[in-house]
């Protein structure tokens, strides 16, 4: 007698088969419904936790390359699958991603994809899945890729690709290229507890290879990502996870002296904790964000054992939360399209639609105008986005400064990047950082007592 394997019931399906079916469902929800990948991955539906790294790799990777893979699927399928069987389209996409980008042998990918049809309750599709993937293996090198639309060749949605191309006509190729790479795991050193050299040394003693970041003096990247709780010093608050470009924001804020500092839109608190680590001896630091997002800030503070004044409120309605003391420094890291961090959040490719940029532009301009009222004369606002689109960057500054004559744009001094009309732009992959924009605006002293 042969040991029976039980089909249909997903709980007892072979581990890896189940993983592929689950990934296909996640990718479907991201691509077709614009759901957040991070949120879908918080609690993956996996019977075996050991499959989680492979699951994440497949989910991120397939989302990253879906527009590209989709072109091949268009060639392979005689006609599109029926809408109710569209999950199979994504199963095939996950299969092609694995064939192209993962170490799984081709035959194993085919086997798992065919097996996954039963977890998806579509046993009838075994031959279809097998056939399409086999055709792909046989014919992938024979397709005329010159016929592929440019945005699909670069694995982008048409809207985002065209927008990047028109905003950065000379650099769009390097931007889309960098947006499709796997991001590094970058850490920030807490200088109050250790130095960068010491932190790097500790990691190397634990045989984790790491390299100092080029532009941030307090950062370094790990050559191969590890779970954060395995990083020496992480739980003691000596290092935090933060992208290089994000690290540069707090460094630019010039908090010398006894200052009242506001971190507006602070969640998850990466920059807040950075400010506290650097300036807590002299400055009073307040972090504000919407109520629902404040837990993230508290969690981050708790891990590092730091105290801060965390306030729940809407930045645009200071009446509901502001204590009336003007701020000397305001870090305003506004909500944005995230076009500079697509390599970390490939779901952005499917979540942004035409019209979104105008909505962000309005929100950003009104937030900047709102915090301006909380600023002490002589004080500074540092406006930050993780976007590479002018509409959310220089355009916001332009419309903001046109609303009054007491707005002095100052040169960004400590952040290397591309100087724009008002601020400084870092594109994804600069140094090893994400795409960020920074602009510093000063409120002149003479406007006191209007």
């Amino acid at each position: 007698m042969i040991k029976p394997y039980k089909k249909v019931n997903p709980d007892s399906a072979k581990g890896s088969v189940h993983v592929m079916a689950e990934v296909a469902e996640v990718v479907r929800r991201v691509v077709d419904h614009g759901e957040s990948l991070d949120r879908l991955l918080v609690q993956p539906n996996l019977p075996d936790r050991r499959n989680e790294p492979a699951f994440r790799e497949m989910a991120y990777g397939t989302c990253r390359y879906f527009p590209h893979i989709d072109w091949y699927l268009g060639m392979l399928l005689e006609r599109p699958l029926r809408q109710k069987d569209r999950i199979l389209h994504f199963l095939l996409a996950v299969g092609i991603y694995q064939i192209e980008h993962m170490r799984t042998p081709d035959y194993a990918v085919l086997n798992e994809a065919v097996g996954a049809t039963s977890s998806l309750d579509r046993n009838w599709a075994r031959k279809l899945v097998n056939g399409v993937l086999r055709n792909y293996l046989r014919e992938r090198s024979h397709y005329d890729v010159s016929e592929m639309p440019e945005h699909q060749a670069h694995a982008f949605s048409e809207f985002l690709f065209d927008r990047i191309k028109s905003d950065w006509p000379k650099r769009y190729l390097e931007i889309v290229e960098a947006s499709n790479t796997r991001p590094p795991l970058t850490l920030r050193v807490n200088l109050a507890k250790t130095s960068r050299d010491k932190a790097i040394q500790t990691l190397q003693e634990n045989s984790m290879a790491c390299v100092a970041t080029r532009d941030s003096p307090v950062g370094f990247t790990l050559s191969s990502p590890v779970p954060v709780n395995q990083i020496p010093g992480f739980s003691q608050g000596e290092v935090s996870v933060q992208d290089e470009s994000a690290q540069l924001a707090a460094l630019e804020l010039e908090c010398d002296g006894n200052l009242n500092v506001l971190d507006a839109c602070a969640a998850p608190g990466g920059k807040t904790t950075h400010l506290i680590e650097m300036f807590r001896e002299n400055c009073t630091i307040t972090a504000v964000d919407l109520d629902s997002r404040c837990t993230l800030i508290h969690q981050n503070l708790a891990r590092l054992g730091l105290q801060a004044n965390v306030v729940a409120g809407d930045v645009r309605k200071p009446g509901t939360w502001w204590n009336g003391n003007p701020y000397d420094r305001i870090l305003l890291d506004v909500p944005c399209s995230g076009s500079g961090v697509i390599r970390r959040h490939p779901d952005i490719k499917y979540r942004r639609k035409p019209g979104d940029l105008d909505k962000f532009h309005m929100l950003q301009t009104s937030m900047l105008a709102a915090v301006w009222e909380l600023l002490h004369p002589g004080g500074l606002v540092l406006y930050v986005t993780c976007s590479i689109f002018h509409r959310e960057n220089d355009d916001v500054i332009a419309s903001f400064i046109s609303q009054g004559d007491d707005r002095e744009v100052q040169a960004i001094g400590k952040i290397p990047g591309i100087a724009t009309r008002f601020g400084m732009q870092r594109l994804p992959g600069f140094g090893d950082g994400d795409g960020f924009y920074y602009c510093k605006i000063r409120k002149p002293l003479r406007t006191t007592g209007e």
Partner: protein
Amino acid sequence: MAVREILMYPDPRLRTPCEPVVEFDKALESLVKDMADTMYDAPGIGLSAIQINVHKRVIVMDVSESRNQLQVFVNPEITDLNQGMREVEEGCLSVPGFFVPVKRPEKVLVKAQDIQGNHFELEADEMTAVCIQHEVDHLDGKVFVDYLSRMKRERIRDKLLKSRAEPATRVA
């Protein structure tokens, strides 16, 4: 290690009822050895002597995950303990590639002899119960597809014959 050839359904030799073992000698020892090798190689969780074309009432089994708990049953007899019936999917080394649910008694009492001829009894449940009943059927010239309807059985038969007619691809 001697891995022997396994007879494939619908081979008529799978239908010959087996004779009880009388002599517990070296020949039996080496038969059991070959059967175990063949079963672990296949890999299967149970094998009866008839499947390697030896028409004697001998069964080897190992239902453990670790694959190191070999059980040997010589001249086994089964009685239903009347604990109800249960349907479990079964597969057979002589019917490769097919898994079908078969309804059998949930718990059975097995009376058998070991390799030296000592008598023993065992209450079998779970996979052990399924497997021992499946193997004892073999000794009586029965194959698990006999529990299926004629149409399903003949479909399986035809598929197996067809797959063997094709150039040597072994259906596992």
